[in-house]
């Protein structure tokens, strides 16, 4: 559905030349929810802004629905844009319009009749939890409320593609969840394709099918969410995965090692197979070791439990070695020995 | 109403002061003769002649003869005048200079920026013997460049709005300020007493009723002039304008 080739965007300032997006290739399927993550300044916002040509590409091609976006004339681009909703990082609401009228705006643009418009707006206001504030102006809303108006506005005209630039970063988890559910719902019912920029990995985990990791304007890694979560290759990806997978932060680890100064400490990666979920209890039964779960996180994926646990093994050195060997040889759990006491 | 409307309605363009006021005074007298007078006020000196020539006006009353002649020469309009009605004498005033005899060398003369007045003012200066103008130049059209003799080395500065001249007289003490009498009176100057020297009623700068040449004998318009020359109107002028406007061509 969306096919991007050699996309490039260079900003020239007096002192610097910044390549915000650098020869980027990407294919996004119809009806997919595609996540984009990356550090601040990686070029994520620039990337989505290139997709609907709010930013003119310096180079490269963007095909959406077999239309070459970069070659559309003004009018064609206009019509193409009506099918692409966009949620802005900084909301970009019209201060001169009430909440209601802000949400109705894309419908007015698309020429939807008044009665229908009102119905749709009411529905959306309810969906994003702003009922009762219809007639407020953006300046009278909190940050998260503005964000929700932006979301409602982007969804109003039932777009085919939705570009979300940190759509939930100003929202509390409860509201985030309800918005994400809403997006998944629309995605499933109407086949909406969503490109979702975020720095919250749990958002990616919860709703994305695939994810791309950007760094310095390039996509350094991409794939199925689970694959990327399981086998992050790049450092940047690992950092992001750690966020959702637990507190792998190195300084935490050192503290841990200092605190629990006895026995072996190992890190177990559960890679999503239900057979291994009982590993801890199996080990306890099989070997004469005590297993202290110090830290970690296990989540459910379609294929089974997945995650990381940092475990302290106390007991006889031999027994410990055997236990570790067992894990290595007989299970699909990946084990990493952090401290080995000999 | 233009020239082609009712025979007995005449439209006359006039400057608001004193011309329009004088006409307004005459209107009821004219009405008695069965003539309706419509006064069209103008604040500008170009348009009334344009409008007269184009037929929008039947007559106008705002200019003196030299100006009318100048306009005819410039534009080729076929205009003429019936008769003169009044003079607004111009005077020269000064706080610092008290007599014609001891005007210091290089004294500045401040005068109106209204070009049509310049010839008239220079003529007045020539008459009292302060300058000599090029004899080949028509007095009415003379400009500062036409001064051939200027024994006192007077410096003419024709840059000021006529209405501001009384203020300049107050502040710029060692200059000669040429002030139209109407402004002088407005500023509570007494032309006869305060002026260093003054035009007399023999001035050629008499304000006339101007018409298109073909209308020179028009009955209604001549009736208008007749009434303006009547004793009643002439007395009105004398009383109303306290000497700043001097009626001419009447019976007195």
């Amino acid at each position, binding site marked *: 559905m969306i096919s991007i080739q050699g996309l490039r965007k260079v900003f020239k300032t007096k002192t610097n030349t910044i390549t915000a997006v650098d020869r980027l290739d990407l294919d996004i399927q119809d009806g997919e929810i595609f996540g984009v993550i990356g550090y601040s300044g990686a070029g994520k916002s620039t990337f989505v802004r290139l997709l*609907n040509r*709010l930013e003119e590409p310096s180079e490269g091609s963007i095909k959406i629905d077999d239309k070459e976006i970069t070659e559309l004339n003004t009018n064609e*681009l*206009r*019509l*193409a*844009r*009506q*099918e*692409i*909703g*966009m949620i*802005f990082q*900084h909301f*970009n*609401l*019209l*201060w*001169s*319009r009430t909440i209601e009228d802000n949400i109705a*705006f*894309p419908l*007015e*643009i*698309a020429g939807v009749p008044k009665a229908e418009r009102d119905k749709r707006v009411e529905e959306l206001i309810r969906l994003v939890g702003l009922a009762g504030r219809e007639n407020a*102006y*953006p*300046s009278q809303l909190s940050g998260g409320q503005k964000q929700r108006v932006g979301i409602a506005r982007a969804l109003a*005209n039932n777009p085919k593609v939705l570009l979300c630039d940190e759509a939930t970063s100003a929202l509390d988890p409860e509201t985030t969840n309800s918005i994400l559910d809403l997006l998944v719902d629309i995605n499933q019912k109407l086949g909406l394709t969503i490109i979702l920029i975020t720095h919250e990995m749990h958002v990616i985990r919860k709703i994305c099918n695939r994810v791309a990791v950007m760094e310095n304007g390039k996509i350094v890694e991409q794939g199925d969410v689970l694959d990327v979560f399981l086998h992050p290759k790049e450092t940047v990806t690992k950092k992001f995965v750690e966020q959702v997978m637990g507190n792998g932060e190195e300084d935490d680890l050192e503290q841990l090692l200092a605190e629990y100064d006895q026995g072996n400490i190992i890190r177990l990666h559960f890679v999503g197979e239900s057979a291994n979920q009982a590993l801890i209890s199996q080990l306890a039964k099989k070997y004469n070791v005590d297993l202290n779960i110090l830290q970690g996180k296990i989540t459910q994926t379609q294929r089974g439990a997945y995650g990381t646990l940092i475990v302290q093994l106390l007991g006889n050195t031999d027994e410990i070695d055997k236990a570790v060997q067992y894990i290595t040889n007989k299970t699909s759990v990946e084990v990493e020995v952090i401290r080995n006491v000999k | 109403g233009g020239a082609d409307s009712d025979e007995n309605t005449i439209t006359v363009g006039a400057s*608001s*002061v004193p011309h329009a006021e004088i006409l307004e005074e005459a209107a009821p007298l004219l009405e008695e003769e069965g003539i309706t007078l419509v006064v*069209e*006020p*103008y*604040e*500008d000196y170009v*348009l009334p002649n344009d*409008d007269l020539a184009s037929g*929008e006006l039947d007559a106008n009353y705002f200019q003196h003869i030299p100006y009318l002649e100048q306009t005819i020469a410039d534009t080729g309009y076929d205009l003429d005048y019936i008769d003169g009605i009044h003079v607004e004498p111009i005077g020269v005033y000064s706080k610092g200079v008290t007599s014609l005899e001891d005007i210091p060398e290089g004294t500045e003369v401040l005068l109106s920026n209204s070009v049509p007045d310049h010839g008239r003012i220079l003529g007045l200066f020539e008459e009292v013997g302060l300058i000599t103008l090029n004899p080949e130049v028509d007095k009415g059209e003379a400009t500062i460049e036409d001064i051939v003799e200027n024994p006192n080395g007077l410096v003419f500065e024709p840059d000021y709005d006529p*209405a501001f001249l*009384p203020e300049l007289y107050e502040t710029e003490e060692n200059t000669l300020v040429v002030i139209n009498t*109407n*402004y002088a*009176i*407005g*500023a509570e100057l007494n032309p006869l007493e305060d002026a260093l020297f003054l035009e007399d009623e023999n001035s050629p700068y008499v304000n006339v009723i101007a018409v298109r040449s073909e209308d020179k004998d028009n009955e209604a318009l001549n009736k208008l002039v007749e009434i303006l020359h009547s004793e009643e109107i002439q007395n009105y002028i004398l009383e109303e304008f306290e000497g700043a406007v001097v009626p001419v061509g009447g019976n007195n």
Partner: protein
Amino acid sequence: MLNDSNIKIDDLLEATYETFYMTTIALVGTFILGILLGLLLYLTMKGGIWENKFLNFIVAAIVNVFRAIPFIILILLLFPFTNFLIGSIRGPNAALPALIIGAAPFYGRLVEIALREVDKGVVEAAQSMGAKTRTIIFKVLLPESMPALISGITVTAIALIGYTAMAGAIGAGGLGSYAYYSGFQRRDFDIVFICSVIIVIIVFIFQFIGDFISNKLDKR
């Protein structure tokens, strides 16, 4: 003091009416024409929606030329046009073309300044929704800059009142010309004073209305 004066209430009322009449009608014309010019300047500028160096230069030139011409000369230049349009070159109505054409380029610049203050983000938002330029103009640019547009037209209104004084030259009447010719020229300063007071009152009325609307519309 006022007893010495030649103030005629009728004349004064008429002059007031003429000033109001000319200012109000001219204001409507100026508003429309000025917004048009301002939009053209804004849209065709560098980085604008219709970026067009040539057109921008032309519009800027027209605006500058008409702003540059002294009003009195503008009146003169417009005679043929005025005559064609109004059927006369005298009186309050004949002053309108000159007033509008004199004030609109000026207001056009104020409109341009106001439009430049509109947050680029909301224009982008509208573009991302596939809005026509017309929609962007009428539903984004104008509403979002409305407080500044109204303040600007208020400023222009008051400049227009000043212009009406000069329009007295073609017999348009009005307070300014009444003050100048019947008051100032005749050194009847009571008339000047009274006229000034009335003008000040009119200015206050315009300013009050302008401020009121502008504040009302400002939802920031």
